[in-house]
C-alpha cells in the first residue's frame, strides 16, 4: 500500500509542477515587453532631457538656470508649492481624521468631493477660476473695484495649484486611518487625554509615513502642474510664469537647450520624489500591515 502511494506521488510531481508553471518563452516575452516599454517610454526620454540640457556644456546649462526669468519662475513655483502643500496638509489631515474617526451625514459625499480634482481636467479647473475671478467673471467687477488681482497674478496660480493637489494628502491618509480604527484614540480618551493631545501623541505618529508620502506626491504635483496654472497665469514673463510654463515659452522660442535645462530641474524633482516615495512606501507598508493584524470589530459584542 505505502509503496504504491509513494510511487504515485513520484509520478505525479513533475506533471503538477509543469501544470502550475508558465512556459519559459512566455515568461521571457512578458519580461521583454515590460522592460522594452519602460526603456522606450521612460528611460530614453529622461536621458534625453539631461543630454539635451547639457549639450552645450555645463556653463550654458547654469546660465539658463540663473537667467532672471528662470529665477523668477523657480521662485514662483516654490512660492506656490510652499503655500499649497501646507494648506493641503492641514486640510488632508482634518478631512481624513473626520472621515476615519467619526460618523456623520454626507460622509460619502465628502469622500467623492475630495476625489473631484482627480476626475476634472486641470484646464477646466483653471477655467473655473477665470469664470469666478476673471474680469468678465462673477466676482470680477467687485475685485477690480477694490484693486484685487487674482487671475493673471500669483493668487490665481496658488488657487489653481491648491485645487489640483487637493486630494493627495487626504487620499493617502483615509485608507490607513480607517484600517487602524479608533481603538487607540479611545484608549487615550479613557486614560484622560484630551482630543488635541491624543491627536499629537497617538494619531499623528501612527500615520506619519503615509502623511510624508502624501506631502511628497502633493509637492511634486504642485511644482509640476501645467494645465490649470497655464489658464490662470497669463504667461507674464518674470511675473506669473512657473517652471513648467517657462519651459514651454523657451521651447516655443526655439531655445531648446535652455528649455531642457529648466526642464531638468523638474526631472530631478521627479527622481528625488521617486526615491523618497519608495523609501517611504517601504516604511508605510509595515505600518499598514501592523494595522491590518490588529483590525478592530466595531459593533461586535
Amino acid at each position: 500500500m505505502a509503496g504504491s502511494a509513494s510511487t504515485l506521488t513520484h509520478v505525479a510531481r513533475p506533471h503538477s509542477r509543469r501544470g502550475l508553471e508558465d512556459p519559459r518563452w512566455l515568461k521571457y516575452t512578458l519580461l521583454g515587453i515590460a522592460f522594452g516599454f519602460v526603456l522606450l517610454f521612460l528611460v530614453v526620454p529622461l536621458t534625453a532631457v539631461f543630454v539635451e540640457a547639457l549639450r552645450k556644456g555645463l556653463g550654458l546649462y547654469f546660465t539658463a538656470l540663473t537667467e532672471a526669468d528662470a529665477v523668477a519662475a523657480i521662485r514662483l513655483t516654490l512660492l506656490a508649492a510652499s503655500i499649497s502643500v501646507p494648506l493641503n496638509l492641514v486640510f488632508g489631515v482634518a478631512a481624513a481624521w473626520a472621515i476615519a474617526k467619526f460618523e456623520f451625514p454626507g460622509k460619502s459625499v465628502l469622500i467623492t468631493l475630495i476625489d473631484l480634482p482627480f476626475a476634472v481636467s486641470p484646464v477646466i479647473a483653471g477655467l473655473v477660476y477665470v469664470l469666478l475671478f476673471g474680469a468678465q467673471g462673477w466676482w470680477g467687477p467687485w475685485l477690480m473695484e477694490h484693486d484685487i488681482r487674482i487671475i493673471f497674478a500669483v493668487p490665481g496660480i496658488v488657487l489653481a495649484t491648491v485645487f489640483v493637489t487637493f486630494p493627495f494628502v487626504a487620499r493617502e491618509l483615509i485608507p490607513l486611518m480607517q484600517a487602524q480604527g479608533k481603538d487607540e484614540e479611545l484608549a487615550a480618551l479613557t486614560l484622560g487625554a484630551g482630543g488635541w493631545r491624543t491627536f499629537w501623541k497617538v494619531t499623528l505618529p501612527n500615520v506619519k509615513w503615509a502623511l510624508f508620502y502624501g506631502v511628497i506626491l502633493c509637492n511634486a504635483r504642485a511644482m509640476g502642474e501645467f494645465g490649470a496654472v497655464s489658464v490662470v497665469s497669463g504667461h507674464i514673463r518674470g511675473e506669473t510664469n512657473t517652471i513648467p510654463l517657462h519651459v514651454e515659452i523657451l521651447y516655443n522660442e526655439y531655445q531648446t537647450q535652455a528649455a531642457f535645462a529648466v526642464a531638468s530641474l523638474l526631472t530631478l524633482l521627479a527622481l528625488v520624489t521617486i526615491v523618497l516615495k519608495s523609501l517611504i512606501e517601504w516604511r508605510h507598508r509595515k505600518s499598514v500591515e501592523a494595522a491590518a493584524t490588529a483590525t478592530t470589530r466595531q459593533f461586535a459584542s
Partner: protein
Amino acid sequence: MSIEVRNAWKHFGSYTALAGVDLKVASGRLTALLGPSGSGKTTLLRIIAGLEFADRTEDPESGRVYFDGEDVSAVPAGRRGVGFVFQHYALFKHMTVFDNIAFGLTVRARGERPTKPQIAARVNELLQLIQLDGLGARLPDQLSGGQRQRVALARALAVQPKVLLLDEPFGALDAQVRKDLRRWLRSLHEKLHVTTVFVTHDQEEALELADEVVVMNQARIEQVGPPQAVYDRPASPFVIEFLGNVNRLESGLDRLRASERDVLYVRPHDVDIQRDYTGQHALAARVLHVFSAGNYGRVTLERIDTGETIEAEISRSRLRQLELVGGDKVHVVFNHIRLFPKGEFYETDVSTPAPDNPDHYAI
C-alpha cells in the same frame, strides 16, 4: 465602587444592541458579561465606560449610569475613573511598553501630574506586577499576545481606576496562554479588589473566573447570578443551552411526566443508561456510538420512538460494566431535568416542577 445602569437602549441603525437593560454590579466583585456575539454585552460595557452613549428615550432615567449611586452619565470617559482594556489591546504602537503604561499619568494636567521619578516608580511597580520587569524598552510589536494583554492591563491600572472594564480580555489568545492569564487575572483581582467587569463569549471562562455572571442574549439580560446558580438553575432555555452541552427533547414527553407543550432539557452527565430497566420512566434507545476518554465515556444514543439524538456521559467503570456496542437496545433514565414551555417567548422565571426524588428522577 458599585455600578448601576438603568433601562439602557441602544440602536445602531436598524440593529438593536440593547433593549432596556438594567444592570447592577456590586462593589469589589469580578463580574462577567456572558453572551454570544451580537448579544449587546460589549455595547453595555462601553456605555459603562462612557465610550458609547445609550439612546435617549421618554424615560428620563433611561440609559443613566451610576457609580456608587452618583450619576456619571454626563461625565466624559477620561474622568470616570475607569480603566478599559480593549479586545485587541489598542496599545500605542509607536511607544515603548514603559511609555504606554506611563501614558495616563503623563497626560495629566500640570498640577495633578506626578513628577518624572514618581511616574517611573509607578510604571516599574506595574511592570513587576505584570511580570514584565526589564521589558519596558520594548515596542508592543516585540511582545507576545499574552504580554501585550498584560501591558494593556497595566496601562489601565496605572491611573488607579475605581472600575476596571475588560472587553474579551482573552479572546485573541491561544488556549494555554488563555488559561494562565485567566488564573493570573483572578489572583490579581484578589490582590487589588478593583470592581471589575469583563465581557466574554466563553462560558467556561465566565463560570471559572467570575463571582457573578450576567448572561445576555439578543440585547437583553437573561439571568444574573453566581456561576453555580446560573449553571444549576438556568432561568431560560437560552441559558441552559449556552452554558455547556445539553440534550433537548421536544416530543413524546408524556411518558416523562411532561406535556406536549414542554421542551425538556437534560445535561449529558444526568443521563444514565440501563440494560434492563423495569421502572416506567425510561426511554427505549439504540446505541449509535461509544467513545471513552479520561474518566468518563461518551455515548450517543437514538430514541427509538422519535429518533431524537441523546448524548450521555457516564463513568468509565459504568461503561465497562454495561459493555455497550453500537446497535444495542437500552433504556435511558434522566437524573435531573429542566422543563420549559414551548414557544418563541420564554418567561425568564419559569420554575421547573420539583422532582420527587432529585437523585433519581426516573422518567
